[in-house]
């Protein structure tokens, strides 16, 4: 099975406090730790496991700048066979449909049976997979948390729905799936793995290579424009206990007793 996984480089919320710049034009990006979007990493692991079972190849693709290459290399160190970087000044500030149309252009240059995305990203909207499927006229399932290959024409996929329940579907190949976190246990990538793929050539493609009209993507083509960032109102907010830890602990015990939190 020929599998393409769409990945993205994002600030790692587990490692960073995200602060808004004073003029609201962006978040403070100096000193941010970036990594591959967590959901995308699950998608790559799933693709590798499927390839190892039924054969084929895994290609990882991203829309980004030069620095995005590092996430492609990381996913190749995990076991993806190929990487492609879609990069062009014209792609900057694309909205979801802009990103999806770039991915569509790349996908149509190849021949893929299965296209995976992460279900969402911390700086995103959980939209690119569904848009991409509609643009390619392929069937789609979101929030997928199990995949079983039935034969070379069909998959059985589980979708995570409300209440911890799972919605089972049969879906025809080729298709697009967005992958929910927890579907598998992504393998550890060691420094040796990274070193092995350090010199592998990763092709870069711009608007001309993809045959995309630059006016339809990037800020020029965006139907949704981010105007500013701001820090949400705290509202009432919690009463913050401050000061000496021992006193805080006494206070917590007192509160727990008063509210029925201790038996």
């Amino acid at each position, binding site marked *: 099975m020929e599998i393409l996984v769409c990945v993205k480089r994002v600030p790692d919320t587990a490692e960073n406090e995200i602060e808004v710049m004073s003029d609201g034009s962006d978040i403070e990006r100096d000193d941010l730790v970036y990594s591959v979007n967590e959901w995308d990493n699950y998608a790559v692991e799933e693709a590798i496991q499927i390839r190892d079972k039924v054969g084929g190849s895994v290609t990882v693709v991203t829309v980004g700048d030069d620095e995005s290459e590092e996430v492609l290399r990381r996913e190749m160190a995990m076991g993806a066979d190929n990487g492609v970087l879609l990069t062009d000044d014209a792609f900057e500030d694309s909205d979801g449909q802009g990103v999806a149309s770039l991915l569509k252009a790349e996908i149509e240059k190849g021949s893929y049976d299965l296209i995976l995305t992460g279900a969402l990203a911390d700086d995103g909207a959980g939209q690119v997979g569904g848009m991409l499927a*509609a643009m390619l006229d392929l069937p789609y399932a979101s929030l997928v948390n199990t995949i079983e290959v039935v034969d070379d024409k069909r998959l059985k996929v589980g979708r995570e729905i409300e209440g911890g*329940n799972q*919605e089972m579907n049969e*879906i025809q190949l080729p298709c697009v799936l967005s992958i929910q976190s*927890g579907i598998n246990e992504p393998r550890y990538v060691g420094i040796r793995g990274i070193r092995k793929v350090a010199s592998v050539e990763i092709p870069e493609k711009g608007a001309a290579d993809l045959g995309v009209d630059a006016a339809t993507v990037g800020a020029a083509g965006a*139907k949704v424009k*981010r105007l500013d960032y*701001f*820090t949400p109102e705290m509202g009432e907010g*919690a009463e913050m206990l401050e000061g000496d830890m021992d006193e805080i602990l006494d206070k917590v015990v007192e509160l727990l007793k008063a509210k029925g939190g201790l038996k």
Partner: protein
Amino acid sequence: MAQIFAYIAHKGGVADDSALELLSAAEKIDAGAEVTALVVGDGADLDAVAAEMAASYKVVWKVAKAELAYPNAELVRQALVGLLPADAVVLISHDTFGMDLGPGLAVKMGATFVSDVVDIEGSDGTGLKVVRQEYSGMVSTHNLAEMGSGLVLNPRPGVFAPDEAKAAGGEVVDKSSDVGDLSAKRKFLEIVEAEAGDVDITKSDVLVSIGRGIEDEDNIELAEELAEAMGAVVSCSRPIVDAKWLEKSRQVGTSGQTVKPKVYMALGISGSFQHLGGIKGNPYMIAVNKNPKAPIFQVADVGIEADILEFIPELTEKIGG
């Protein structure tokens, strides 16, 4: 102003809680709009939901088709694309169905799409200004969405106060014959119900709930010791289950369990809306997080900025001693 539609999710003949929230959201787009409810499905259940919605919506478009008895997003999309005017504004709740339907529907309508909208600040006729959140709610953004060629908007469940007036006296219009044959390459098979775990967290009055801040599987023990000292039960947020450190049945949230405790200790939990969506009954909430910007502090009663790996054992000792 374009016509506004609200897609009504329903199950077992009853509309989802989001149904009246979407009406409020629509009123924030255009206060004077005659909002149309889209009620799609089949049989007596569908009729019941259509009648229920006519109390709140001026117009209810009903689409009855055997293929739509279960809401398969691909089939629903086909039905809607054939039915809706080109410049329609469509509201769909940002739940697991809305996430399945919204992005593809927007593409097929040639419309703009905005997901997970938490506020609507009005329109100038060509664009709609909406608020979204990024980075697990740590920052918000204003966004301007084009409206000229249609707009699909997924409002976040629970943030728009439901319009309970029920004074619409609306009419139900049967649009079934305007929808042609439907066929999908994805077929719904069945719902697999969540498995029961070793402990039922929904039955506990006191929950010691842990999140990403626990950092390592070995540290779960710290939470278990605290819970034992308190006479409480350990629950968790999604990352703990994703990491397979605790069973799925321990997860609090819209994709896990809905709990209704008296006291909720949120330890190292950032407080995503999916997590908070699983906490009902307004429990007394104590939140501990080393990030002072964590959204959990907006909803907790009491907050402590601390590393839970230091805080938990100290609290256990304090209670024990």
